[in-house]
């Protein structure tokens, strides 16, 4: 993969990995404080994430982490990245068949799965796959 072409994904600088941690920490803090101020239990955090802006900031944080450069960004890391993206993309199939198509066929026509949940799960799959594959590559080296 030596040639640089315009179809190759552009990555954010490495320091975005730290910005992401700040965003997620701030977001969760504000969400918990908001629950506390509205006199609601922590169990409603999930509902709050899906129905308000808090969930978007979690996705933004995960996105920064997933698409920022490593300290050493070489060809092996690029391959690991593509491999992990493919895993995340394949999780679409599981999600579509397991959580959308089968429930809708089994007679719940109004059922709709939230798209932000899907993207957050995909990002998590990508990050976990990337970390595991990167570690494997380091062991091989």
């Amino acid at each position, binding site marked *: 993969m030596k040639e640089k072409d315009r179809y190759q994904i552009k990555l954010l600088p490495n320091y975005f990995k730290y910005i992401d941690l700040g965003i997620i920490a701030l977001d969760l803090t504000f969400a918990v404080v908001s629950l506390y101020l509205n006199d609601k239990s922590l169990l409603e955090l999930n509902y709050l994430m899906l129905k308000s802006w808090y969930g978007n900031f979690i996705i933004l944080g995960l996105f920064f982490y997933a698409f920022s450069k490593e300290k050493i960004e070489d060809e092996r890391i690029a391959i690991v*990245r593509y*491999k992990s993206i493919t895993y995340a*993309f394949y999780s679409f199939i599981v999600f579509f068949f397991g959580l959308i198509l089968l429930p809708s066929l089994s007679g719940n*026509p109004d059922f709709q799965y939230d798209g932000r949940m899907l993207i957050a799960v995909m990002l998590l799959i990508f990050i976990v796959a990337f970390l595991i594959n990167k570690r494997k590559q380091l062991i091989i080296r």
Partner: protein
Amino acid sequence: MSNKKIEFKLLPNYFKKIGLIIIGITIIAFILLIIFNIQHQREFKGYLGDFVLNGFILGMFIIVFSKEKIEDERVRDFRYKSMAAAFLFGILFTILMPLMDFLFQSEYKTLSAQYIIGVALGIYLINFSAIRHEKQDEE
């Protein structure tokens, strides 16, 4: 990208035609829905709308995950790039849509997962064919 470890299972090439047939059927079903104005009948509304959308996504899935006639390393490289673009677009779409709602002061809407999967698969197909044609032209 010469890494033999990245091997993924794909459907045989003739599944592309099956995918196209499924998409064709759902488009016809969608047109019939509009012509006969079935949408106003409450008992059918959710079920048929879902059926058409899911059928369309299923057709796109089959096309995306079926082999090309010549499935070599270059085609696999195009696949990875297209998947990356579709993944990235899906995420940006999810982040930016609520922002658009906020900027244009419209109601905060929930994005359905089907909608995002459909958009991402569409981006994959457009990107994949664009790369393939561009590289073919270069040769």
